[in-house]
């Protein structure tokens, strides 16, 4: 019996782990050479890697950057070196085209600025650790650089002023600590406006920058939302929220379809100097036609719009699919199943050819707009199912707790259900985003000049006839950069939203 009892007389101190577990050598031993089998596998993998890289690296690091045609490349390498080395001259000569398509050279600053502003608009949406003031620093800096890029006395003065303002705000942001700033705000210091304001107006600025035309068009479009908002705000308490919503949508539609065009004409007339063909509108950008769009600019435009619009539409569809209202449910299910059951290419063909047949003759419905609508709807149908998966994963108790606290349907959805459902669905949502972005290359089939379409055009040039790997490699690399960023962002977001032990 006595050897069954044991009493510890002294507690053991904490010890460092054995040396084989830590440090570089320890790591290698533990992960690559633990056991005979694993060691053999490691060595085989290294040999395989060496084999691949020894073929690939010389191909990539070929000194062909300055060549002007495939023949020049061949001269550099000798006639037989057809695929022995990459011919990067094609990228040097055509990368601008791969990025912008046939967008007029003088106007290229517009997509560049639009792209820069896209990040400024996205940052407050994507990250919440960056401070309000840093957002405005970024915005001012992008606008300032745009001014400098444009040049001209006005551009340079405005650019320098904006950069100066950015520097000033940035300096203040760096010199006052977070706590000091919080105290200042507490004691009534004025805060900069919420950067979400810019995120909200960006969707109106971007098309104006890309397509040009009168500035009053985007302003009018934005006013439509304002009209709808106020209609809802004032009518919903009187006629109920559903009727209020319907009236608000009608009011906005009336504005867009009937009232907006006269307003835009009036305002344009006001800001136009001169008459006849020589007239100049002070507040308009040179219009650029959709058929001049191309390259990554086109892919990113379609991708960003489809991504940004498909998520909210998908959420609405997912909720509609769960609705108790029979008609709403039937509509949503029908839409989702129809769109998911049809290949995207079919939808794109419908967009490019059939829609014209149904539209009244003479209406000129922009081809990119048509493609945008189709790709967005396609993505939204998938998104709806991804979100529905997230909704289904939520325990019923969450709905009951929200109900029991007296939250109505929309508040419960917004505050309790959606934040959790979307968080659960992040991997699926981002997969859909990545899929949509990659699917944008399908537009080359209906004749739009996305990077793939352009690569065909470039290979048709007799200088570059036969260049394949370099072009596709470059395009693949660009797509990889975007898709990999999205994937990393989603992992960051998942980590940030984790609320269990930490």
């Amino acid at each position: 019996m006595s050897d069954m009892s044991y009493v510890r007389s002294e507690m053991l101190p904490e010890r460092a782990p054995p040396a084989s577990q830590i440090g570089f050598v320890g790591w290698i031993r533990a992960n690559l050479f633990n056991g005979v089998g694993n060691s053999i596998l490691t060595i085989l993998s290294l040999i395989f890697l060496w084999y691949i890289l020894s073929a690939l690296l010389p191909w990539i690091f070929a000194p062909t950057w300055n060549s002007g045609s495939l023949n020049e490349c061949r001269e550099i390498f000798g006639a037989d070196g057809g695929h022995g080395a990459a011919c990067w001259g094609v990228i040097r000569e055509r990368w601008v085209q791969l990025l912008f398509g046939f967008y007029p050279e003088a106007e290229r600053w517009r997509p560049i600025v639009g792209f820069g502003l896209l990040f400024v608009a996205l940052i407050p949406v994507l990250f919440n650790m960056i401070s309000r003031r840093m957002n405005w620093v970024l915005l001012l800096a992008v606008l300032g650089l745009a001014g400098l890029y444009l040049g001209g006395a006005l551009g340079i003065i405005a650019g320098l002023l904006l950069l100066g303002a950015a520097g000033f705000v940035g300096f203040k942001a760096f010199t006052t600590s977070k706590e000091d700033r919080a105290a200042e705000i507490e004691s009534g210091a004025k805060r900069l406006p919420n950067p979400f304001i810019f995120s909200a107006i960006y969707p109106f600025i971007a098309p104006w920058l890309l397509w040009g035309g009168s500035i009053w068009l985007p302003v009018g479009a934005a006013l439509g939302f304002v009209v709808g908002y106020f209609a809802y705000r004032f009518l919903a308490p009187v006629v109920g929220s559903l009727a209020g919503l319907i009236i608000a949508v009608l009011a906005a539609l009336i504005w867009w379809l009937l009232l907006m065009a006269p307003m835009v004409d009036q305002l344009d007339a006001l800001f136009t100097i001169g008459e006849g063909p020589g007239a100049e509108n002070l507040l308009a950008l040179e219009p650029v036609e959709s058929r001049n769009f191309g390259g990554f600019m086109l892919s990113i435009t379609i991708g960003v719009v489809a991504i940004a619009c498909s998520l909210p539409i998908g959420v609405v569809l997912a909720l509609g699919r769960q609705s108790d209202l029979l008609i709403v449910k039937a509509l949503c299910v029908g839409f989702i199943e129809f769109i998911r059951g049809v290949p995207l290419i079919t939808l794109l063909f419908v967009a490019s050819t059939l829609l014209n047949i149904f539209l009244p003759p003479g209406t000129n419905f922009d081809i990119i707009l048509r493609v945008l609508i189709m790709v967005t709807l396609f993505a939204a149908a998938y998104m709806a199912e991804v979100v529905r998966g997230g909704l289904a994963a939520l325990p019923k108790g969450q709905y009951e707790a929200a109900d029991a606290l007296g939250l109505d349907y929309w508040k419960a959805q917004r505050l309790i259900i959606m934040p959790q459902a979307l968080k659960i669905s992040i991997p699926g949502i981002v997969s859909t985003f990545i899929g949509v972005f990659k699917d944008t290359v399908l537009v080359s089939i209906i004749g739009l000049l996305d990077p793939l379409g352009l690569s065909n055009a470039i290979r048709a040039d007799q200088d570059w006839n036969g260049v394949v790997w370099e072009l596709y490699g470059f395009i693949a690399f660009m797509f990889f950069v975007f898709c990999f960023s999205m994937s990393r962002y989603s992992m960051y977001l998942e980590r940030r939203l984790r609320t269990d032990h930490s």
Partner: protein
Amino acid sequence: MSSITLETHADRSKMEVSDEVAIEIRDMNKWYGAFHVLRDIDLKVYQGERIVIAGPSGSGKSTLIRCINRLEEHQEGQIIVDGTELTSDLKNVDKVRSEVGMVFQHFNLFPHLTILENCTLAPIWVRKTPRKEAEEIAMHFLEKVKIPEQALKYPGMLSGGQQQRVAIARSLCMMPRIMLFDEPTSALDPEMIKEVLETMVELAEEGMTMLCVTHEMGFAKEVANRVIFMDAGQIVEQNEPEEFFNNPQNERTKLFLSQIL
């Protein structure tokens, strides 16, 4: 069944029952499809009453108290809570829900919000309380359930007993006149059961009207002024706890009590 003995004796002198009716249920019937879960329920609850509902599994206890804040819909009869009848009129439902707090077996805290946010959410969005004030109220009730120091943590980081106390605080932040408890302790370990029951005793001592489905008969004896026994969707017997436990009348009640005591 467990029988946790409460260390503190509930001070019954403070628990006054007024003659104002808090809940009135008349001839209420409910079906799940063809299954008749609640049959001819008649119940009057006065302001300040502490009622414990007991009964075998599947007897309809949960369904009954879930009907009171319309998490379930009844098909026949009337339920009137604080003068508002529960009908399909959503306004009435919202009104009743904001006056009736509910605590669930599995806590149902919102895992994506901090403890403090869990407690301020409904006051801010339903009652339109300013955030600062809502936070003060929330801290007050978190202190009352003895976990103010956890306010900024997330529910996933708390023990079961702590989570259930947060759930109670969350309900209290809406200043309800009636509290419903659906087996608040049956997902907890004995040590945690005690801390939750003690919180509930305190609440009773402050005169809260409580309807509590529970198997904690110690709690029923200490706190309840009435015990209701349900079986097969009916109220089989109701009485003061003393009488109910020592002198049950119905055969089913006797059987039930002999099994759990």
